[in-house]
């Protein structure tokens, strides 16, 4: 299968591609299924239990769903459905309504389709408390920063600059005002959301040569990794002298570029490391895993790999491959929980596979979490802060909640 189709674009084509993939992987998946069934009986454990599901209106594809990990005692998540971002709270599973709708932000532009939502927080001026904020990006190429606990949940800052759809975003793990976004315009941008300035653009002669699909930041915030349609995975350093100086200088201007001197974004053309050896197809999720990486393409597997110093320079050394099935369309995100003990990935027929990473050696044993009614591709899922709740978002506009037993 040379090229898979993002099912958003063409339903019929998607059908074709999925059917071909099924026909290709039918035998193997059957085998696996039987194996898995055996294992399931032996281990007798599926730690996740279905709690509830809800259908969003309009029930179009939900590309993004994310728990807010900054709130300690409540499990609040946001899901983006077209131009609408809804915020829900997961309450006790025995409650009449285990997932409760809190509020929503609707983009005025009806054509907007949000591809990603990420949470951060901001200090409210003059107080010691912090308010949650939400960054959302979509096909319009504009990042909307939304304050969630204001009286009216309006967009209060926009980040302008991307010329194509925004596919993925991440906040800096240490500085909550630094945001990195990856876009269809082949570039990544680093933003300071306090004054809506773009600090750096990561693209150019040695940058991505097609859409950037996924970004992630290392836990110390010194490097970041990006993957894209060009099969490339790139590691970028945020610690170069030039960048450090820029990051320091960016707070000297306000939102209208007023400062002692005008502030101009710098362009970073050269990644620290770049490889096409990990995947032979669209790389739709990349994740830091300590100093190593987990990445996923639409090749029915997740690869755990690291960089290795060789006489010829940095080389990729693959450490392990997690096998999954029925996940051959692209733009299917895998997700880790906050403690990095569970790895979840969706399939195109409504299943969520979970791997346990809390073992000495990686075990290629996937747990399937699903529900008979859940049959459409699971684009993204998210673990709660404790890792006990899993929510997943599907293409038919449904949001599913599973709880750990």
């Amino acid at each position, binding site marked *: 299968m040379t090229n898979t189709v993002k099912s958003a674009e063409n339903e019929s084509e998607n059908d074709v591609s999925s059917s071909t993939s099924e026909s290709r992987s039918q035998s193997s998946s059957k085998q696996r299924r039987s194996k898995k069934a055996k294992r399931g009986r032996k281990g007798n454990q599926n730690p996740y239990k279905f709690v509830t599901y809800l259908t969003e209106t309009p029930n179009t594809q939900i590309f993004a769903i994310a728990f807010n990990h900054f709130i300690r005692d409540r499990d609040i998540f946001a899901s983006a459905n077209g131009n609408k971002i809804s915020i829900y709270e997961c309450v006790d599973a025995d409650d009449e309504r285990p997932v409760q709708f809190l509020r929503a932000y609707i983009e005025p532009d009806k054509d907007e389709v949000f591809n990603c939502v990420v949470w951060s927080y901001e200090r409210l001026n003059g107080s010691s408390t912090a308010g949650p904020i939400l960054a959302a990006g979509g096909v319009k190429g504009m990042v909307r920063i939304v304050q969630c606990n204001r009286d009216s949940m309006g967009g209060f800052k926009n980040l302008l600059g991307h010329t194509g759809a925004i596919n993925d975003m991440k906040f800096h793990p240490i500085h909550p005002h630094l945001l990195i976004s990856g876009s269809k315009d082949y570039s990544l941008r680093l933003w300071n959301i306090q004054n809506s300035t*773009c600090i750096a653009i990561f693209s150019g*002669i040695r940058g991505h040569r097609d859409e950037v699909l996924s970004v992630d930041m290392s836990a110390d915030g010194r490097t970041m990794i990006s993957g894209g349609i060009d099969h490339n995975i790139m590691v970028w350093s945020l610690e170069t002298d030039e960048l450090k100086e820029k990051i320091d200088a960016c707070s000297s201007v306000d939102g209208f570029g007023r400062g002692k001197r005008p502030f101009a974004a710098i362009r970073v053309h050269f990644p620290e490391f770049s490889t096409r050896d990990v995947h032979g197809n669209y790389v739709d999720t990349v994740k830091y895993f300590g100093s190593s990486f987990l990445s996923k393409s639409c090749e029915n597997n997740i690869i755990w790999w690291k960089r290795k110093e060789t006489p010829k320079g940095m080389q990729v050394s693959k450490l392990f491959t997690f096998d999954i099935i029925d996940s051959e369309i692209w733009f299917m995100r895998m997700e880790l929980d906050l403690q990095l003990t569970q790895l979840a990935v969706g399939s195109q027929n409504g299943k969520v596979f979970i791997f346990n990473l809390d073992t000495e050696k990686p075990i290629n044993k996937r747990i399937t979490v699903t529900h008979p009614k859940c049959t459409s591709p699971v684009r993204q899922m998210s673990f709660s802060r404790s890792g006990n709740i899993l929510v997943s978002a599907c293409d038919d506009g449904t949001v599913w909640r599973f709880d750990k037993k």
Partner: protein
Amino acid sequence: MPRSRTSDSFKTRKDITPIADTDLFFQTFEKPTQIYRYLKTRFISSPLFLHRTLSYMKGRTSRNNKSRAEFKVNDILSTIQNKDQKPNENENLIIGFLSFYDSHLQTNYVKVETKLEKISYKRRKESAMTQNQIRIGESRVIVNTDNNGTDKLPAVCVSATEFDRLGDNVQTTYQLTFDIESQPFTGSTTDEPSNKYTCYSKTYHAELPVFDKHGRNLLVNGLYHVTALERHAFRPSHMLCWENFPSEADQHIADWAEEVNKYYFAEEDSNPFVTFDKTPKIQLYMEWTRSKITGNNYIPRPKFITDQHNNNKENTSTVNGTATTGTVNGSLLNGHDKSELQLVEKKAFIFQFIVNNSTKQRTEERSDFICPWCSLNCIRIYSLIKHLKLCHARLLFQYVEDAGKARVDVYLNELYDGSYSGAPHDILLGSQRQNGPSRRNVVTNIMVFRPRRPTFKMSEFQEVDDGELEQQRQYISGHNRIYYHSETCIPIMPKELDYDSEGEPDPRWLQRTTKQMIDEFTDVNEGEKELMKLWNLHVMKHGKSSNHSRFVGDCQIALACDLFLKEKGAELLEKNLYRNYVVHLSSMFNYGLISPQTIIGNIRRLNEMLKDDQDENGKLKANRKAHVAKANIKPVVTKREPEKSESQDSKESSNTKVNPKDEKKGGKVDKEKATAKVPSKHNEVNGHTPNSKHKGSLALKRKLSTA
């Protein structure tokens, strides 16, 4: 909308108002009215600006900045200290009598006797109260005229000692009572109609509380109108404190008015304010001061600040707030001097709404200058119309004075496009108004603009309005849109407009990739690569926009060569690229880019540079040898020339171009002189610090020579 309108055209049609026309009226004015109503509420909650600061709203400013001239920092402290001091402690109350009003009274003066009433009662038994009256004084007060002309007021003084508290457990209220006795009228009153209220001698009574039983002061400095009722109509007070009024205070006023009417006017009019206007009242001026009255019971008439903004939200002080609503015992207090409130233009006017050249609706005559859309009291007609024109641009206004009657015509502004005329950055970057004011973006800067303020005259509103504001100042145009940096697609901020982001200086990434790509060649040797890097970056640097010597054509190659030697000559020799450069020159000659003269000139220049420094000269050979030994360089190859000729050429050049004598000399010098001296001299001449490569080569050379 046709602008040619005569006053006749709507006069003829104003009576015809069928239902369809009414609908049309509503259709036309509904939308702007709704919008302005919304804006009004938004303005109240978070104002954009203060109306009183506008030049045409002079009437709304109550402050003057006179005190600023002699302001000192220490004044703040003293002001605060004055505030902190317990008010009215040891202060005498001076009561000045302005005049007494009773339209039925025909005398010129009345006698006013002022008494202070103390009512004290024990805390537990409120019924058992003791009451005693102290006489303060008597004054002769003018009747029914405003004593503007006089500069003295009859006055009495209640000394501070009278208000002394008897003890903590005793609660005392103090109230002033005024007994007004009209003197018998001396003029001919016999021809008066048989008005039953006209009598020759009348006594009135008025009361005004000073301290309530909790010791709170109820009077502030200012002007008071106190209703005085005739003795027989007076209702003794039950309520001594208006703060404790139940919420139906209005009901109380109405009750009171009714009662007064019953006793006094025997009329059905129950509007308390009308009643207040008609009731006899005494006008008092109260002042708390530490000084006493000097002179025989007269004080100089104080100047009253004309309080022109009755409904002013911004300036309403607490004094007005309480005084206008509170009544005590039949005394309505008002802090305003009503007679001075009305200004010159007191003329009543109407609003006339016009749709399609015909009058649709008219308002009743009104003499208040309150904007119907934002309930803003503009104080005078000029301010009102100016406000309407400037703040309600969706509508057009025209002031018409017709047969002594004023009228404001209102039409819909069909030219109004509702487009956003502020800075676009405010919208795009999401600087929406949050809670409280935020700094906005400035697109243009006015350093100083002091236009001649036009004199305010009504004639400016009488022309037909075309919906365009006349501008005195030329605004900078073209900045009400947003521009983007072409490379980064980030909006260009107003501050950055002066900087050229489109310039193409040779960027570092390009230099880096150029070097990288040259390094990746496999069919050229290291020396060639170095020269290619030097030359290509040189041409790149000057090929782009730089102020001087821009290389754009073949004819400039000679110039480029000269500049190259000037800028990179030393580096060239240091990297031992003499021969590579000569080959480069000859290949350029082969392509017909440079003339033989240029080659000769360049080589001569290089040789001069070599000669200039003997060490350099000596090092050339050493470096060359070391380089060759180390890298095992193949003979210099270019793609165009066959290998043979190239190698010959290089041999030749090595033999001919470098002066053998010099070489030998250099060699000798190197051999004979102590090695330590070499680098020092090198430093002096070249200004370069010898790098490790040279050191290495020198050492190698030494080895070779010793061997």
